Structures are given as structure tokens and as C-alpha cells.
């Protein structure tokens, strides 16, 4: 049923239609993972990582770029640095590349501190940095500055489904053909930190950043998005495991078959090296 008028009470998730009830589309969008990097950091080590998330072309990043960036953006940037260096792309320009930043619950610790200050000290205590540096767009903006990329940059996801949403946005952008490549960068914490009132957290959380440099040709595993006719609904535990699964697949000695749902009905697959797929 296509609900134009939803029932006035909160419905359960719509049941998945029967498989085969509609012909699946033949199209599948794909990209080649031309470079990849994974970075992990315990929350307690973030101050150190912020000072030096790594270097590209042996050059440190500007302290002003790193000073106010959200901690997920820092871990994401460290993953990008690893990807660039592992691929040996030391002299490569990313001038025309796009950046998609797919964070999960970005800004929680900074927000908790800001809310606490606001509660006790009022409007004048609110940091002007909170919206620009701690919202969904922020990770992509930070990384586009770090890479000096002048292609599109935007955030995608933001919540439990951030891996699938980031990939779908990046692959669609790549397929449009305006850019030579897309950096899609994921960030998230496990477990999600419980902030204290002073702008920190005692939760033993580890931040994970995963960076994929997607192109339309070349060597590397293919990552693809397929939209089947239907699929089972996924729960939040499935979504939360996506980032770990992606990181593990990329860190493995060979690319393992890996799939993740896109909403309730799509499948994103990392299908193996050298498939030569194109969008």
C-alpha cells in the first residue's frame, strides 16, 4: 500500500513486499575502490591525533584546520591520510574530486558541553563554532579543505544508516560523471560515548574512520549498489555493525564478500578485487 494518508497512530515498519512481486531493476551503480584507509583511535588519544593526524606529501596540516574540527572529522581525516599514503598518491591532486562525509551522531560531546554551558550561563556562552563545525556537513567540509578539493562536498547519513547512505550518495555522484573521483569518508564511535558535563567522556570508546577513494575505472575491488525488488527490514544493530564490517573487509588481506542494506530494500556490495566494473 502506498500511504497518502498515513494512519493517525505510529505504524510498524512497512512489511517487505514479496520477492519477485516487481521486476528488479537491471541497473547497478558501481565504483572502483582506488584507495582505502582505516584509522582507529581511542577517545582518550584524540588530542594527540588532532595535533598530528598524519601528513600528505610530508606536509603537516594547518593547525587552524585541525583546531576546531569535530573529533569524527579528525579520525576521518586520519583515514584519508592512510589511504593516500598507502596508495602512493603523494603527488596526486584532488582538485576536482568530490568529498562525501558520512558521520554517525557527529558532535555529541561538543553538544553536551554546549548545552550544559547554555543551561547555566545562557545565550552568550554558546560557541559560534557549534553549527559550522559540529553538524552533518562538517566532516566533508574539513576534508575538502585538507585535500584542497574543489568538487562538491556534503554530508550524508548522520545516523545509524550512515554507511549505506554515504555510499549511495557517493556512487550516484560518481555515476553523474562530473568528477574524476569521490572521497567517501565514514566516521563513528563504538561504543557511542556518553559525554560528561565538561566536554569530555570516560566511555572507553574507539573512533573508527574509513576512507574510500572511488573512481570509475582502474584497479581495485569494486563496490556496487544494487536495488533488488525487496529485502528484509534491517534493525539498528545491523546498521551499527556496518562500519566495523566495512573496515574489517578493507583491512583483510583479501576483500571478503560484504554487503549492507540500503534502507529496507537495497544492497551495497564490496565484490572483490579487479572486477573492472564501471558505473
Amino acid at each position: 500500500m502506498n500511504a497518502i494518508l498515513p494512519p493517525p497512530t505510529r505504524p510498524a515498519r512497512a512489511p517487505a513486499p514479496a520477492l519477485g512481486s516487481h521486476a528488479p531493476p537491471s541497473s547497478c551503480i558501481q565504483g572502483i575502490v582506488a584507495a582505502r584507509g582505516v584509522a582507529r583511535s581511542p577517545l582518550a588519544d584524540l588530542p594527540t591525533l588532532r595535533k598530528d593526524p598524519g601528513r600528505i606529501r610530508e606536509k603537516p596540516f594547518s593547525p587552524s584546520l585541525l583546531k576546531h574540527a569535530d573529533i569524527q572529522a579528525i579520525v576521518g581525516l586520519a583515514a584519508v591520510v592512510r589511504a593516500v599514503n598507502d596508495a602512493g598518491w603523494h603527488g596526486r591532486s584532488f582538485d576536482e574530486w568530490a568529498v562525501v562525509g558520512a558521520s554517525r551522531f557527529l558532535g555529541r560531546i561538543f553538544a553536551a558541553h554546549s548545552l550544559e554551558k547554555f543551561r547555566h550561563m545562557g545565550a552568550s556562552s554558546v560557541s559560534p563554532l557549534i553549527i559550522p563545525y559540529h553538524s552533518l556537513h562538517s566532516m566533508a567540509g574539513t576534508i575538502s579543505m585538507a585535500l584542497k578539493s574543489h568538487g562538491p562536498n556534503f554530508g550524508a547519513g548522520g545516523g545509524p544508516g550512515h554507511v549505506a547512505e554515504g555510499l549511495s550518495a557517493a556512487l550516484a555522484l560518481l555515476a553523474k560523471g562530473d568528477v574524476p573521483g569521490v572521497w567517501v569518508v565514514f566516521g563513528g564511535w563504538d561504543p557511542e560515548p556518553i559525554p560528561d558535563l565538561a566536554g569530555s567522556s570516560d566511555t572507553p570508546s574507539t573512533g573508527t574512520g574509513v576512507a574510500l577513494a572511488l573512481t570509475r575505472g582502474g584497479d581495485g575491488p569494486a563496490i556496487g549498489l544494487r536495488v533488488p525488488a525487496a529485502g528484509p527490514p534491517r534493525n539498528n544493530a545491523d546498521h551499527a555493525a556496518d562500519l566495523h564490517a566495512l573496515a574489517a573487509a578493507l583491512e583483510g588481506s583479501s576483500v571478503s564478500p560484504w554487503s549492507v542494506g540500503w534502507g529496507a530494500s537495497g544492497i551495497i556490495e564490496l565484490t572483490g578485487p579487479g572486477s573492472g566494473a564501471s558505473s
Partner: protein
Amino acid sequence: MSNAEDAAWITGVGTATPLGLDYQSFVDALLAGRSGIGPVTTFDTTAQPCRVAGTLSPLPAPEGWSADAWASEGPWEQLMLWCALQALRDSGGTDHCPPERVGLILGIGSEWLLAWERDLHAGGYRVREPGRDQQTLVDGLRDRLGFSGPTGTVAAACAGGNVALGLARQWLRLGLVDVCLAGACDRSISPLGMAGFGNLGALTKRNDDPQRASRPFDVERDGFVMSEGGAVFVLESRSRALRRGAKVYGEVAGFGASSDAHHMVIPSPDPAPCVRAVQAALRDAAIDPSAIDYINAHATSTPAGDRFEAQVLREVLGAGIGRIPISSTKSMTGHLLGATAAVEALACLATFDRGAIPPTINLDDPDPECADLHHVPHHAREAEVRVAVSNSFGFGGSNTCLILRAAG
């Protein structure tokens, strides 16, 4: 299944803005040159640097909803449902399309921050209870509407609506969906939101004269006016729309985007990256700048931003800058932040079916550095518009441009 050669048509619209809670009343107000700005009365603004904004009037329960069920929805959820249901009704519904072939992609900027803040004001402490953060607003909306196709939340700060429309068009062209709801919503007028932008020095200080506070391109402008609302569109392929005899508002004909790669907040002093976004959109739409009939400027009423956009347009249009009518509807709506691009796309569609260009109100004395633009001050102007350009730029150095074309 690919629709690469098929145009993406808009066949349904839904909106809520300080100027009106549906398309017709919104457009009537725009063309009448009415301001939607007033004092903020929903919370204590005494300590806020800025105390004026464009706020939404209460959204009534849509048809089919009990008052109690509607009241139990949060303000964001109400806004998104309101816009989406209106757009779906307007398009004639989606019974022609299986639910897994209906996509949903919206520009939503700061949903978690605002959810955490709202809970704090209600006496909770959700920011410290991660287990309560289970589902994005967009995923929740998808479930309510009964769709199961691709879903996405995107954010490019004030440019998010253009990104959503650009990606929705791409999903259609790739054959990933048959119908897609796309747009953007924003409800950032909160104590923390206003304080954040106020302390950034971005907001007007004309607290005693709210209706004249938003004055893009005027020499006396002193900052933008926050606003709230949204717009959601139903997109489908031209061939599908023709087959079912759908009403058509226009075509999403082109989308371009770029990054300044300069600063998270301050626009680049070099207009080249922003020029690149506008040129990419024109290229995508396969049109020459001379084909543009109207430009809906991003122009937020900040001293630096409006001047910067004039510089960009000068580079893109050359001599055409004095010929192509340009206005900033933010003079009436205020700046809807994450939703602004979607609402301004709606303003562009209005020029097609009303044959008139909305004005920039409060433009009493154009800034000399923007004086060569072909402004439409104070009053709407009759014009046949077939191609409209909508610029939207955001924090993070994100520049976007959307081209809308009259259908047919």
C-alpha cells in the same frame, strides 16, 4: 531501466514557510512582496543578540490525523510530514508505483543537535543517552509514508536542498527509483541555534524593525534573519508523468556543486570555485547563460556574502548581468538555513506558472558593489520565465546551483 535521457519532472509540491502553509499562499505572499519576519515569541530572547526570525505558525493536523496523534508528533516530524503529505496529495499519490520504487532524500542539517537541545528543554538529557538515538528523521518519515525504497539524509549546510534535488534526479536517471520525494526542512530557531548564529555575528541586529531586517543587496544590510520551514517535491521521469497525465511544475534541469576548500565559515575571496558550480549546472542543463530568464540569488543579507555572489554572477554572466532579473526571496522569507535551497526552488517554479518574478523587498539603496545586477526591488515584475537559476551556498565552503526549466 535507466532513464538517462529522460527529464526529471516535478509533479507535486508541499511546503510550509513563514509566508504560508501551502504552495498557493506562499506564492501569493511572495508576489505581493510580503515579509514573514517578526519577533520570536516561542522562547525568551532577552539575552539573544538577535530577537527576530521567520517562524512557522502552528501546523494543523492533516486530513486523516486525529488532533491528539498530530500533537504527539515533534515539531520536526510535523513539518516533514506536512510537506511530504501535501506533495504526495498534490501529485495524485503514488499508487502507480510500488513502495520499494519510491525514494526519499531530504536536506536536514543539524537534526541530532536540535533533538538533543529539544529534549534538554523538555527536562531530559538525551545527549547523554545514546540508546535513545535510534532513527533519523528521514528514516522515520519513510516508515510513516509506507515507502521502502532508497532513503537519504544529506547536508551541505544552507545548500542541502539543492544537493537533495540533484541526487534525486540522479537516482531517477540511474533507474534506482521511479518516483522520488526530495527537498529539505529546517527548524533551527531554538535558543541554542539562535545563540550560535548570533554569537557568530551572522544575524541582523535590527530587532526593532523585523519586517525590514532582511535586506539583501541593500547598502544598509547587517546580517541575515533566521527562518524555518521546508519544501518537498515529487520527482518522476517525464515519460512517466506524461503517461499518467500528471500536473507538472517544471523540470530539474541541471545541478552543479563545488567547494571553496578555503574556510568552514568564511567564503573564499576567490570566486573561481563558486563560478565553477554555476557553470557546472549550466553545462548539466545544456544551456548557455543567455538562456537564463531569472536568478534566485542566495543573497542572505550579509555584507560580505551578497557582494561575493555579485562577483560570481559577474564572472558567469558577463554582460548579461545587467539583463537577467535577479532577486533574493530571503528578503521576505528570511534565511531558512538547511531548507533554504528547497524553498527557493519552489519560488523559481512559481515564476513559471504565475508569469511573474518575486521581488527583493527592502532594497532601498543597492550596494554600489552590487549595483550592476538587474534587481527586482520592492514589487513583483511580470515576465515569461522558462529557465530559472537558484544559487545556494553553505558552511564548509559548499557551493551549489540548481537549474529549473519550465516543462513542455
